[in-house]
């Protein structure tokens, strides 16, 4: 398996009035054409890791790494123009909530076409045909109708599918999905995951799946990285989750109430100071 993305000692910090907040503190991993999950609680730095790869870290943040390399391109030193060209065409990102991440005053179709025409020179007609084909690929029935709808006219699940369509239309090699299903209903969640799974495996993309739900991630990904306080505390194969060694990973696994287990009270995480060191 060839390595597509190399992250070595990535650090992201935010200067604030009360001092430097270190959101990501030395994260290293490599990614080939596989599904990698990043799991952690809020504030563990998982989203900032994804955003750093996308180049969406806010301008006032400090970002450093020994290596942040995508297919031979050094992302940290690459000029803004190169990064713009990469973003959307070769690296794409799916955000959490379709309600906030789609443009409310543009029809869904126009937003998809916009992405496509930014990165490829295609005629209007061809762009429209490809956008509709893409909407069909994410299993939207009656894609031609949805093409002309605005985001407020569709349900959350449909909006999220439209966003997936938008992100995949330029054929990216790497997809960063930041909690793509957390805002959705359980039943819709699985449909969206199924679509994502199918497209990722068909197109041979690399996927970084960011979520706080360890069980969901492990059922979906090949490999899981567990983050706590800006650091990786454990990395393991998804099938190996039962043998997780770090108490934090075990805690995350055990704290979910599941059907058929009768545990009162639920075990809670007993956070140790040394985990954050």
């Amino acid at each position, binding site marked *: 398996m060839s390595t597509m993305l190399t992250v070595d000692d990535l650090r992201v910090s935010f200067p604030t009035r009360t001092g430097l907040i270190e959101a990501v503190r030395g994260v290293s991993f490599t990614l080939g054409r596989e599904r990698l999950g990043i799991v952690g609680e809020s504030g563990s730095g998982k989203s900032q890791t994804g955003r750093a790869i996308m180049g969406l870290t806010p301008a006032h943040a400090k970002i450093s790494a020994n290596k942040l390399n995508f297919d031979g391109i050094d992302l940290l030193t690459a000029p803004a123009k190169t990064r713009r060209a990469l973003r959307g065409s070769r690296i794409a990102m799916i955000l959490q909530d379709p309600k906030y991440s789609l443009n409310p005053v543009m029809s869904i179709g126009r937003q998809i076409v916009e992405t496509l025409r930014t990165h490829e020179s295609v005629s209007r007609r061809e762009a429209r045909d490809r956008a509709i084909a893409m909407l069909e690929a994410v299993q939207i029935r009656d894609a031609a109708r949805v093409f002309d709808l605005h985001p407020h006219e569709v349900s959350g699940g449909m909006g999220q599918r439209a966003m997936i369509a938008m992100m995949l239309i330029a054929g990216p090699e790497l997809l960063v999905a930041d909690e793509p299903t957390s805002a959705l209903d359980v039943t819709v969640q699985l449909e969206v*995951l199924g679509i994502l799974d199918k497209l990722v495996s068909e197109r041979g993309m690399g996927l970084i799946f960011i979520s706080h739900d360890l069980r969901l991630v492990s059922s979906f990904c090949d490999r899981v990285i567990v983050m706590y306080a800006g650091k990786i505390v454990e990395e393991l194969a998804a099938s190996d989750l039962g043998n997780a060694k770090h108490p934090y990973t075990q805690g995350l696994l055990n704290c979910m109430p599941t*059907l058929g287990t009768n545990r009162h009270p639920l075990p809670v995480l007993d956070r140790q100071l040394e985990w954050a060191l």
Partner: protein
Amino acid sequence: MTAIVSAENLTVSFDDFLALDNVSIDVAPGESFGLVGESGSGKSTLLRAIAGLSPVTDGRITLDGKPLDVKYRDKAFYRQVQMVFQDPYGSLHPRQTVDRLLQEPLAIHGVADAERRILRALDEVGLGSSFRFRYSHQLSGGQRQRIAIARALIIEPQIMLLDEPTSALDASVQAEVLNLLEQVRRDRKLTYIMVSHDLGVVTHMCERLAVMKNGKVVERLSSSDLVAGRLSEDYTKNLMVASKGFVRDVAV
């Protein structure tokens, strides 16, 4: 069974959209009752109708056997019934300290002894008195939800309406809040009506539950039936499958 809260043939419509269609539930005193369903199934509307926050077009709600006015609820009602909302970021006043947030229900109901009650309420939800003069933006999501629970508990209601109290929280924080809710229910012998889309959470917290779809109750069952898979509706089965997580073969 003498129900403490019951809804009979309750209908809520928004123009020509029926959000609740002839729904009846009975909740026994001291029981924890769950409402499950996907978005738009009417589970939150039912809870809000009981709280007097949805326009009831037909049917009636009784509390302790006495029918309630569908349009107007008096103070005595809110003394007995309190609600905790889904989003702890939206349900606390951003410019009030925790102290003021907790004073408000006491002032409304003219409860004396505010000082002691605030300290006790904070203590009960596992936040010390050091949190008393903070603003909500200085708290994490889980801490905010604890404050929202403290605010509901401070006037000692008998019935708590919980609208997805943990769905905005991380899994690890969810466990803490669920434990807290169970603890106070045991200590104070409260009745809960809890809405959630997570079957794991509902079966953990509730003894009985109603499954809702398109504004109707499609199935009523006990948690043990659910766990054992004694289901009659396909819709409930789908929810069951969904709650088990992603399985590659099933998907598409």
